[in-house]
């Protein structure tokens, strides 16, 4: 019994990490109506940059976030402003294929620079610390921190979208990009800012991933798929839905993993397909378009 409870709790907290991955993806779809196929690869890129900085300097991985997050944010701004904005339009093929190409480039650049070996960020005792909840039930401190950060990021985004002029501009540009220009909104700039925020969140997700697990240069696509599944399970257009989607995915994977070590990821995919069959619009959909 306690064993299963632990599994459930692990899956639930894993959902926090998945939600961090999903939020950036949901943001770029929500504002620009595009999917960044290299989303996961950018997370892995951020993680490897963190590893490259942490190891020689001996920094704390959390401190490194202060460097990586603005760095990836700025990179995201330039990426959108200089390249991805040119691909936006009626046709969905260009943004998809350009970002797909970026994914291939990033994976192979990382392979050249870091080899195919798996790496991780060492956080010391914190990595294994846990809080006992009575009985034999315990939760890790690190997963709790990740979940707290995920919730904080979502709350921050909700505030940004609901209560700030920038958030209004995001929503307006997403509703009707031409009418938004008539309001004096520079869509190219707004899209670039949205991508900057998405990339900043992706950087957090990537660094946390490298703290929690070993990563390899080719891990990006799997991360994209989890993020995508969490977004669809949660329902498009629903900010908190991505957290619910992440949790459902995390729990499904944890249960699958417990049943058979080879079945963890598969169970997650199957949960996604099941939701797609039963509730095509996701569990908490706000918009119907996809």
């Amino acid at each position, binding site marked *: 019994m306690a064993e299963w409870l632990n599994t459930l709790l692990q899956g639930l907290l894993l959902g926090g990490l998945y939600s961090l991955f999903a939020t950036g993806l949901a943001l770029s*779809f929500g504002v620009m109506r*595009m*999917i960044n*196929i290299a989303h996961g690869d950018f997370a892995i890129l951020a993680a490897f940059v963190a590893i490259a900085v942490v190891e020689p300097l001996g920094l704390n991985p959390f401190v490194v976030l202060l460097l990586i997050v603005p760095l990836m944010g700025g990179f995201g701004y330039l990426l959108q402003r200089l*390249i991805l904005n*040119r*691909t936006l339009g009626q046709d*969905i*093929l*260009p*943004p*998809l*294929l*350009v970002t*797909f*190409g*970026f*994914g*291939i*480039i990033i*994976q*192979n*650049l990382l*392979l*050249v620079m870091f080899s195919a070996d798996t790496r991780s960020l060492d956080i010391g005792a914190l990595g294994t610390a846990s809080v006992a909840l009575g009985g034999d039930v315990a939760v890790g401190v690190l997963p709790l921190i990740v979940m707290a950060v995920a919730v904080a990021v979502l709350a921050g985004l909700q505030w940004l979208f609901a209560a700030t002029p920038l958030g209004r501009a995001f929503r307006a540009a997403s509703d009707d990009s031409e009418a938004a220009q008539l309001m004096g909104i520079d869509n190219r700039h707004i899209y670039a800012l949205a991508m900057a925020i998405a990339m900043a969140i992706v950087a957090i997700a990537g660094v946390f991933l490298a703290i929690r697990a070993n990563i390899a240069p080719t891990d990006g*696509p*799997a991360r*994209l*798929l989890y993020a*995508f*599944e969490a977004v*669809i399970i949660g329902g498009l257009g629903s900010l908190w839905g991505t957290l619910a989607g992440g949790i459902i995915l995390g729990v499904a994977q944890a249960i699958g993993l417990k049943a*058979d070590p*080879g*079945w963890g*990821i*598969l169970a997650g*995919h*199957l949960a*996604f*397909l099941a939701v*797609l*069959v039963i509730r*095509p619009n996701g569990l908490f959909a706000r918009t119907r*378009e*996809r």
Partner: protein
Amino acid sequence: MSASTPIVERGTRASRVGLLLAALLLLAAIAAPWWAERSSQRLFTEFLYTLALAQMWNLLAGYGGLLSVGQQGFVGLGGYCLVVLGLQAGLNPFFIVPLAGVVAALVAIPAAAVLFRLRGAYFAVGTWVVAEVLRLLVANTASVGGGSGTSITRTVSGIPAWWRESTTLWLALTLGAGATLAVYFLLRSRYGLALTAVRDSEPAAESLGISVARVKWFAYLASAAGCGMAGALIFITKLRIAPEAAFSMDWTATMFFVVIIGGIGTIEGPIVGTLIFFLLREFLSDYGSGYLIVLGTVAVAFMLWLPRGVWGLLASRFDLHFFPVQRRLRNQALKEEK
């Protein structure tokens, strides 16, 4: 207004030259086992199955407007047909190739039922999930070798080497030329018109009485079957199969590269793209990951600055159409005025 009747035609001078050229090439390729070295034969084989894969992706994305990044799922499935039907059931491997197409199409039916609930870019990522599900299912099945894969040498060991190599080439030729011709004739049929209409504007096609869903469904199944057959053939030449290689994203990456460079939405594009792909590989393959970085960069650059590909550029500049699928309206009177 002149009373002359415009003439609707499809053929062009280039298309007649193209037909002749294609026929000659075809004959040369069929005869390759008698004149080419074994290494060149292998290269031809590889060229042809790459062309087949590219045509299948082009059919989906270029004509059907369906973006898939999960075609590797059907390639892998086709490859594993060799294990189940060949290694275990003892069928002749070459006989398995068409069967693999049937199997892939059968698997595509439930996949389509789920995936068609997603649109556009979401459909694309969805296809990737399905491919991953297939990979993980295979990797978790011990009887087909599990995650580490299995040797399939035994399925082909009974066949004399010359016949094995030659039949492989002929099959590859059938698939490569067949895929090209199949797309060509499909597009010239009523279905083709419907496909193009669907790509250009779904609501407009719908209002013309075209069932968008059915046309897309058909394109998806046809493409799955083509990829499945190519997959079986590919692994006949590899002699060893493992989930990582069979369901590798690289298959779809290659299709996407070839089609984008060559020219999406044209039949000639994948042929040109495959040529460029093999040339690049010849020069760059020594650089390992660097080679893939170059490929990725070239593809991104094409998408940004030359989205119609090399063939699109040539065709519009020189008005070339070796495989004319659009009906061309020629007005006699207009010509005379000029």
